């Protein structure tokens, strides 16, 4: 009970701010009589969202599936590769600078090239793109977690005659777990963003990204905004999922 009150107390300023923001937006559109192609009122966006809900849901499923498949594949590959990096030093020295550099540039534009490799209706280029983006985020973070262990911990394990495998299982992996969840928190929204943006580079016109651009092209601004709203919701869903995963991991520690 107390906890619930506390939560509401924490969320209240954000809720009030959000309400004021949308209130001001609605008021400004009406008061200044802004044209819909310049700025659409929240009420009409919401109206279009309800009217087009089944289409929006279908498009969100397409983009969401691409993001999810890429997220899972990228995480699995990233974790696997990070074990390799932590085991072989030379590999680490070659791959890590590359991975760090790639995290700093918009590699999702590669999807244009990937599109050329597959048929025009294929979802594979988009999924591969999401996988790549997620892969490097997870790889860099988890490899760091596996290698940056306390020297005291390693000395203690060696004093107990622990094998490298035992040190991996009892020190490195538990040490890397929080790093994995942090990387998921970064990678989950990045996966959704990549899934949308890769739709701008051609291919099937079935996802949220392509729906937004085609509605804008047809001057259906309110509908485009409704798809934007759905894109926000999908991104939030992925983020909340990663936060939930992290809190499940923490549950064992916090009393």
């Amino acid at each position, binding site marked *: 009970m107390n906890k619930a009150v506390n939560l509401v107390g924490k969320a209240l300023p954000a809720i009030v701010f959000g309400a004021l923001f949308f209130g001001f937006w609605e008021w400004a559109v009406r008061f200044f009589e802004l044209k819909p192609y310049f700025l659409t009122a929240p009420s009409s966006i919401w109206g279009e969202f309800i009217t087009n809900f089944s289409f929006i849901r279908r498009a969100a499923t397409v983009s969401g599936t691409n993001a999810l498949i890429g997220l899972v594949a990228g995480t699995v590959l990233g974790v696997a590769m990070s074990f390799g990096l932590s085991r072989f030093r030379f590999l680490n020295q070659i791959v890590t600078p590359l991975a760090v550099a790639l995290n700093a540039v918009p590699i999702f534009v590669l999807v244009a090239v990937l599109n050329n490799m597959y048929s025009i209706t294929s979802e594979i280029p988009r999924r591969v793109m999401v996988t790549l983006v997620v892969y490097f985020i997870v790889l860099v973070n988890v490899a760091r977690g596996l290698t940056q262990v306390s020297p005291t*911990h390693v000395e*203690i*394990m060696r*004093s*107990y005659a622990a094998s490298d495998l035992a040190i991996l299982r*009892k020190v490195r992996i538990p040490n890397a777990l929080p790093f994995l969840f942090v990387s998921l928190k970064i990678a989950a929204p990045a996966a959704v963003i990549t899934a949308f943006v890769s739709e701008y580079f051609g291919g099937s016109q079935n996802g949220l990204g392509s729906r937004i651009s085609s509605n804008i092209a047809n001057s259906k601004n309110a509908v485009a905004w409704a798809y934007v709203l759905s894109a926000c919701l999908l991104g939030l869903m992925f983020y909340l999922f990663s936060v939930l995963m992290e809190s499940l991991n923490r549950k*064992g*520690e916090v009393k």
Partner: protein
Amino acid sequence: MTAVSVRKVSKAFNVGKSNQVDALHEVSLDVKPGEFVSLIGPSGCGKSTLLRLVANLLEPTAGEVMVNGKSAVKARLDQDYGMAFQQAGLFDWRTVRKNIELPLELKGWDKGNRQTRAAEMLQLVQLPEFADHYPWQLSGGMQQRIAIARALAAHPPLLLMDEPFGALDEMTREYMQGELLRICAATGTTVVFVTHSIPEAVYLSNRVVVMSPRPGRITKIVDVSLGGERTEDTRNRTAFFEAITTVREGLRGMHAAHVGLGNDDR
């Protein structure tokens, strides 16, 4: 049989390179079973290096290290010693009980025996009510007691400690010294203890080994004749202060010699 036997041991780092460091030069030391020996000296005198050679965390460049009548390697593989560091080095993702069970897990003990032993060890360090807490919920002194319980969980005959109380405040430190002596008396453990503090070395030890740097070597061994039973009262006795003075002279003589020799080292 000696608990620890160090014979003419030298240790150099970066051998053959321009930045070669002679950490230890022909050091010899014997520690009898049940004895408490402290290594004291300024930074760079090789006291931690000597401890790590005994622990077989480092290999000597020359000479021989024997623990419990075995080679240092064999002793490590047999878990003949426990070790504690300045950082308690507890694992944050394990409960206090699971931390203490760690060396037993690595020895392949079954769950029942591990739990029984962990409970015994918690009793020994007088923290049984904290079994299911996590390390970060404990104070620094409590964490260090858990680290000692973990080091002794498998009942090794030897305990190696590298400035274990260095990060604690003075009051906690004195309390911990009393606790350590009580625990070692109860278990009959031999201890090799590295420290910076002269009173700490004297209060705890049967013998204080004074070391000097560049290259690291033993300059003096001070026998502390304070008897077996040490209490808070021991800290006020004349013999305590005399031993402190002797150790300090050992360290200072070396310091004077060092200054007199000029700035050849920096």
